[in-house]
């Protein structure tokens, strides 16, 4: 027993060591290229960029955008451009830094936040790409709510509250930052569910485990005017309009630009802010070194690996994104497994009862259809359908939705595994049961399944491992699972490496644990027979 654990630990350590070595290499590389150019007097003017130098320069370039944003819509009109759509703005920035794309088109305020985190490598081009108005989105079926929200926005504007909120996040002088925060007055009563995508500073983003930002505070102010309590639902940006249309959320506030296409789907409120779509491009290497030479070496310290660990996990209790996410991932996986095994066995037995005895023909057709449909469509699509279509108008816990979706999905795969296990049992076992006058179900439960279960355990373990990893798409319904927890850290620290590796290690650890459990069970069952 001890020996086995030792081996397990050894494997984990080896893996960790490999990752650490790898991380040091990457780290070293990063420090090489990032240099130490700080804000020098010269940085006030935009340094020379490579690839894209102005808005007229976009033709035929690789443009990164965030899926569903105005930038994404407008970039499509650029001639011959290769528009690459990322789920998160931070991913696009990452791709730009890694020279996978030539520029990123994104909202101005978000761009500023990104560039200030990457000031040595990225710059915003002086000419903007497009101007835009931000407005809230509301379902076309709810004109009364739209009216109320419009009135609320007008009041917030005229009372000066709106201005105070915006200038606290986008201050003229840096000293004014954070000097005003709107807190909700109404604390009881009907909920106003606001859908947003907290990856979009300064409009909405995570800070200290809470979603905050201009849109959030405006949402609170609107909720107060409506006498309702604001509840924030974080989801993918391209899911928000769907959520509002289906009634999952009352209002969407997420820096939505008023566009014609969107207006066909949804009603826009009066606009509450203006922004620009700007272009972020890489600073030319020569420009960086030029800047470097003018800067004394003690200007800014390069963050050490420990610093980076601190920023990613310790600061603002960011590790909590991972632990909360892990807890959700574990819950989803465990209960989905239970549903999958239960339903999977049931489906398999129906199919075997039909194939062996010609019984339950109708159930068999249903089971076959179920397996075909579930195996024939991606789990992510199923998850989205269950959340946005089947439970569209039900206020339901997202973890429960994910459990149902993954459970139903897993059942189809488990059933085929179980069926193959049952079919591998010698027909003589069935006949012996029959010849003794036993019911098919009795033979199944007491004779066939115990033998089949032992045979399929490795395949079943495989399915559990896939299931565990597949739950990483839960973020698509705005559920904070382990992967999503890592994504949130990425979106606030603008760093890919450490959060992604941390998330990967946790998954790896879970899978190693799970397979150890399965092989232990395997050995125990084997012992029983000898």
């Amino acid at each position, binding site marked *: 027993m001890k020996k086995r654990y030792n081996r397990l630990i050894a494997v984990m350590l080896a893996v960790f060591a490999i990752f650490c070595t790898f991380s040091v290499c990457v780290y070293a590389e990063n420090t090489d290229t990032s240099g130490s150019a700080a804000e020098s007097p010269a940085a006030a003017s935009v340094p020379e960029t490579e690839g894209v130098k102005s808005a007229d320069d976009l033709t035929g370039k690789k443009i990164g955008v965030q899926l569903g944003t105005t930038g994404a819509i407008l970039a499509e009109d650029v001639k011959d451009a290769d528009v690459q759509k990322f789920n998160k703005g931070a991913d696009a920035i990452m791709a730009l830094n890694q020279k996978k794309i030539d520029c990123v088109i994104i909202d101005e305020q978000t761009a500023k936040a990104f560039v200030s985190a990457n000031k040595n490598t990225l710059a915003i081009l002086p000419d903007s790409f497009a101007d835009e108005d931000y407005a809230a989105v509301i379902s076309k079926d709810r004109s009364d709510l739209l009216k109320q929200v419009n009135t609320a926005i007008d009041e917030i504007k005229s009372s000066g509250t709106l201005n105070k909120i915006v200038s606290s996040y986008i201050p003229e002088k840096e000293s004014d930052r954070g000097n005003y925060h709107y807190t909700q007055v109404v604390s009881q009563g009907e909920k106003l569910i606001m859908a947003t995508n907290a990856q979009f500073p300064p409009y909405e983003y995570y800070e200290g485990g809470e979603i905050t930002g201009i849109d959030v505070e405006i949402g609170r102010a609107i909720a107060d005017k409506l006498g309702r309590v604001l509840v924030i639902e974080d989801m993918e940006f391209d899911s928000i309009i769907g959520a509002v249309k289906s009634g999952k959320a009352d209002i969407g506030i997420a820096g939505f630009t008023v566009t014609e296409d969107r207006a066909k789907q949804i009603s826009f409120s009066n606009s509450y802010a203006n922004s620009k779509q700007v272009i972020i491009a890489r600073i030319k290497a020569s420009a960086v070194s030029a800047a470097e030479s003018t800067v004394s070496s003690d200007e800014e310290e390069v963050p050490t690996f420990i610093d980076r660990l601190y920023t990613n996990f310790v600061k603002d209790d960011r590790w909590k994104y991972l632990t909360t996410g892990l807890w959700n991932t574990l819950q989803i996986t465990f209960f989905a497994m239970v549903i999958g095994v239960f339903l999977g066995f049931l489906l398999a037995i129906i199919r075997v009862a039909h194939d062996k005895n010609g019984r339950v023909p109708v159930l068999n057709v249903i089971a076959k259809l179920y397996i075909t449909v579930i195996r024939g469509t991606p789990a992510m699509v199923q998850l989205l359908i269950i959340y946005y279509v089947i439970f569209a108008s039900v206020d339901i816990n997202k973890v429960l939705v994910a459990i149902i979706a993954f459970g139903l999905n897993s059942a189809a795969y488990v059933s085929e595994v179980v069926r193959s296990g049952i079919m591998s049992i010698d027909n003589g*076992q069935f006949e012996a049961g029959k010849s003794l006058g036993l019911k098919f179900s009795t033979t199944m439960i007491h004779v066939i399944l115990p033998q089949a279960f032992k045979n399929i355990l490795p395949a079943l373990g495989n399915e559990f491992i896939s299931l565990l990893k597949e739950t990483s798409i839960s973020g698509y319904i705005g559920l904070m699972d382990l992967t999503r927890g890592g994504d949130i850290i990425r979106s606030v620290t603008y760093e890919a490496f450490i959060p992604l590796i941390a998330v990967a290690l946790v998954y790896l650890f879970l899978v190693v644990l799970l397979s150890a459990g399965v092989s232990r069970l395997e050995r125990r069952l084997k012992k029983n027979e000898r």
Partner: protein
Amino acid sequence: MNADNKKESGEVLIKVENLCKSFGDNVVLNDISIDIHKGEVISVIGPSGCGKSTFIRSLNLLETPTGGRIIFDGEDITDRGCDRRLVREKMGMVFQQFNLFDNLTVKKNIMLAPVKLKLMNKSEAEETAMKLLKNVGLEDKANMYPSQLSGGQKQRVAIARSLAMNPKVMLFDEPTSALDPEMVNEVLNIMNDLAKKGMTMVVVTHEMGFAKGVSNRVIFIDGGKIKEDGIPEEVFSNPNDTRLRDFLKSVLK
């Protein structure tokens, strides 16, 4: 044992009328009729592929007949309304490949059906199992798994398992064909004991010694038909059918 032992054809236990069975176009049993009386020990012999296994498997409806009737204990078991499970409870079956439940101990193999069919409670079933195991000389193997037994031991357990249901007839489908030669006798001895106790038995076998010595009636099936039916002395010493003569010549060599 000899022909004198043959029970006076008293009560008919199984009446087979014009039994037919075909798999697609392949006719395996062609119009078989036979009365099986209580206490009879019938050996079914014939060349391989003649349909003797299908015949015995039809008796407890492991194969569904495509024609004819089987009356068991006064009931037409080929009737649609008949509960096959109740029929099989009363007909024990022993297979060539033993078919012990591999996941259960010897004792539990025997106990499973009586307990699950609520014929006995657990302790009664356990008592019965131990008694039957004693009869087949395998008391000490009660808590072992089938994989730990030899072929002969497995078949003895299989016989005990069938007997636990207190059947009215025992069907043996080539019970010794899968055994190593030195184990054949331990199984035949058990069957011999069973015959002495008056159990009605139908035995598909290649053991001509058993057919001659233990059974009191021999039927020869060829081409899906019963070609000979009589006491062992007649069938073996004075075969009418030329195919039977050829068959006997080849197996008795």
